[in-house]
């Protein structure tokens, strides 16, 4: 059975026919061809596929495209603003949080989700917020540093 699915991704409306079992992740990667959202496990275990769904960080591999019908999704590609990288992205670069980079989009989206709910998280809160995200390169040390830098950058922007 196939369904017509309408999802607003990064501000643009996408209408695609897709099967009932097509995940939001496959919709984003295979239909809309935005490959910045990564597939690491297809099982909800690694966090690489994290996007914002109506402003909240979700695992796009654990959601069906049909569930996202009529909703808004922000992917890593939508985060980069017209005038360049977002503060989280800049902070990740500065902190050396990026090695192979495959977990990075998911980490950045999760950080956006965290900071929009909690603009000044403690280290413990950062580690808890990112516990669903696997990184095999970094030992997480510089990623946590990157999140702290981003929180600081946002708070300075608001002042």
């Amino acid at each position: 059975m196939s369904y017509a699915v309408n999802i607003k991704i990064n501000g643009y409306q996408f209408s695609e026919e897709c099967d009932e079992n097509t995940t939001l992740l496959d919709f984003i990667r295979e239909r809309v061809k935005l490959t910045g959202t990564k597939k690491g496990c297809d099982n909800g275990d690694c966090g690489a596929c994290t996007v914002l769904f109506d402003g909240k960080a979700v695992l796009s591999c654990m959601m069906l495209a049909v569930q996202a019908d009529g909703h808004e999704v922000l992917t890593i590609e939508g985060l980069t603003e017209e005038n360049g990288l977002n503060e989280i992205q800049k902070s990740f670069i500065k902190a050396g949080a990026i090695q192979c980079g495959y977990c990075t989009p998911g980490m950045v989206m999760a950080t956006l989700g965290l900071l929009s709910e909690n603009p000044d998280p403690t280290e413990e809160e950062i580690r808890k917020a990112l516990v669903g995200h696997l990184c095999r390169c970094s030992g997480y040390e510089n990623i946590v540093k990157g999140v702290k830098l981003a929180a600081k950058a946002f708070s300075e922007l608001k002042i």
Partner: protein
Amino acid sequence: MNSVIGKSFPLIDSEDKVAGKLIYGSDFALHGMLYGAVLRSPIAHGRISNIDTSKAKQIPGVRAVLTGKDLNLPHYSVAGEKWLDEQLLATEKVRYIGDEIALVAAVSHEIAVDAVKKIKVEYEELPAVFDPEEAMKQNAPVIHGQFGTNIAREMNINHGDVEKAFRDAEVIVEGEFSTGRVHHGYIEPNAGVADWRGDNVTFWLPTQSPVLARMTYAKALGLAKDKVKVFQLPLGGGFGGKLEYKLHPLCALLSKISGRPVKMVNTRQDELTASLPRVPMKIKMQLAVSKDGVFLGKKVKIIADNGAYMNYGPGILLSAATRNDNLYKIKNIKTQGFLVYTNNMPTGAFRGFGCPQSHFAQETLVDEAAVKLGIDPAEIRLINASEKGDVTPHNWHLGSCGLSDCISQSIEVAEWRAKKELYKKTKNDVWVKGIGIASCLHVSGNRTFLPFFDGSSSEVRINEEGKVTVFPGEVDLGQGSKTVFAMIVAEELSIPMEWISVSDMDTERCPHGMGTFGDRVTTLGGNAAKDAAIDARKKMTEVAARKLGVEATEITLKDAFFRTKDGKSIGFAEVAEAASYEKAGATVVGYGSFQPPNVSMVHPETKVGNVSCAYPFVTQIVEVEVNRHTGEVKLLKIVSSHDLGKAINPMMAEGQVFGAVAMGIGFGVMESMVEKKGAVCNQSFKHNYMPRTTDMPPLVSLLIESNDPNGPYGAKGLGEPALTAIAPAIANAIYDAVGVRLRSLPINPEAVLKEINRDRK
């Protein structure tokens, strides 16, 4: 004074990565490509009596269905191995749960997966063997009939007079150790695209070595090497697990039959059941020590579980059987190593390449010896530590050695002695604290496999605008080799980092190079990039001299300007333009190469050979808290010190350390495949647990610069040894806390509690 080397720069490809713009292997697509899927064996050992593909072929959208019988597939091996034990598809026998049997290409991934399920295979099951010690016995089922034995390799290494050493010893410590089958856990699964046209095949692969891929896949496909092209794509992690892998040439087979490019990407389940994880080892080791704490002799027996196919097993066993001998001044050594086929998942290269296994045994016994002799475990290491200038029994020439500095500085920073005293006061608490130390060493490039080739080459091409592209012979897996090469070229050409880009590697435009493994990239590849940059500088200086009307010797290059002593100058970009326009667009290309000096293959029998031109050293100190009632182990703090020769980019070097330490924690206390009769039970990240954000203790990294004469600016390897000493340091810390020795990895609460209870009785 260096202006770039030694400073922290973010990775030069960070922006693409953080913006989601970098196209990784698993993201890559070609127009009109098909999607492939693999049928894998559900049984561990059996004959294939029949394969029926008729139902799969009838499914709409299926473009090709293949079995081994449809093709005349040659036997092949990897890494120049003489035993040709693999075929791309099992034709007569399957040898492990996961063995590749049949393939489908279809217009979508979903259709390919559905079609694979419709293939019916009948088997005649054979007795299987999963324990390598059982597999060595006379009456064990033989897994590869053509070899007549499951013992794929035996090594016997003898130095000095071991029996005398043991007679002279004050203390002999011994133990039997075992380590698990651990997956690399790279977040991007293996992937590939192949396009077969005429009698040529082109691959786009997230691979650590396009050159090795071409060599092996040509053999596997029965093609001449020059019919195979490989373009490397960015990798989402490698750690040794993305060298040659069957999925890639299987794409080629499907492309040949379907006439279309074919892509395959592993699922995580494929990864955790049919990839090439760490070689599990059983190690019996004895260490003879004098009353002053001098290591007199060592006896070792290693049994390594190859799994169903050989892959890099011989090199890994060699590494486990020899490398740790060079850590200390130990002269009397007797080691016996066996590499054994079983019906388990085949194994392969993984960060550390046999060293984490063997160092776990050695560094635990060193701790035991220290305790028995009443010598501080850090002190006993200092007594025996190898030093600069040493030539070891394996003929390793230690041109630099910061081991003693690693030990001294890490015990100081960790407050080793104070903590040891302090933690004694927690002995009667439920949570008991302890502190443990371990050391290790590694190579910077390993002269093990290929008799005909070693070293690295690089090209530095300067276009007419003065922008520079580096073509390396090594691959960036995310560890940052592109950034290191760019920094070296920026240093030598005195130009901004922003003017430099570094190519991914391929077999068409890049120099022939071995790619990335064995901690070879910074040292060998860095030297090559430096040499190429110096060559380019020389050529640019000649053009500048002509333009300025002086001799080349009178010119210096600084801050992107060529200057004469009397104040005349010309910009780098202007010189590049002149060089190019004067020669009809021919740009300046610097060529560089580095052949590691005084390095040789090991002797085929004695295994003696100076396999690397520079050896890095590491000491790691771990503090733990152990629950006496539950056996739970919490990590409190890790101090990790590294003699890396020279930190070319300290922030990236620390990034390597932190990541390797996390992997060492996984190897030590978390990760392993749970296997029942060859079947992996934990087939997801949920069940095959790797360290997460909340599992990491505070980390301190110390970078110790011993300035190796063979390294570029003194730099040696780093990424691999930073993993190795963590597991034994944890085990030694657990002993310090609760007085029990854990000899099997990963250490879990159940095992700790069992030992605590045994100790009580």
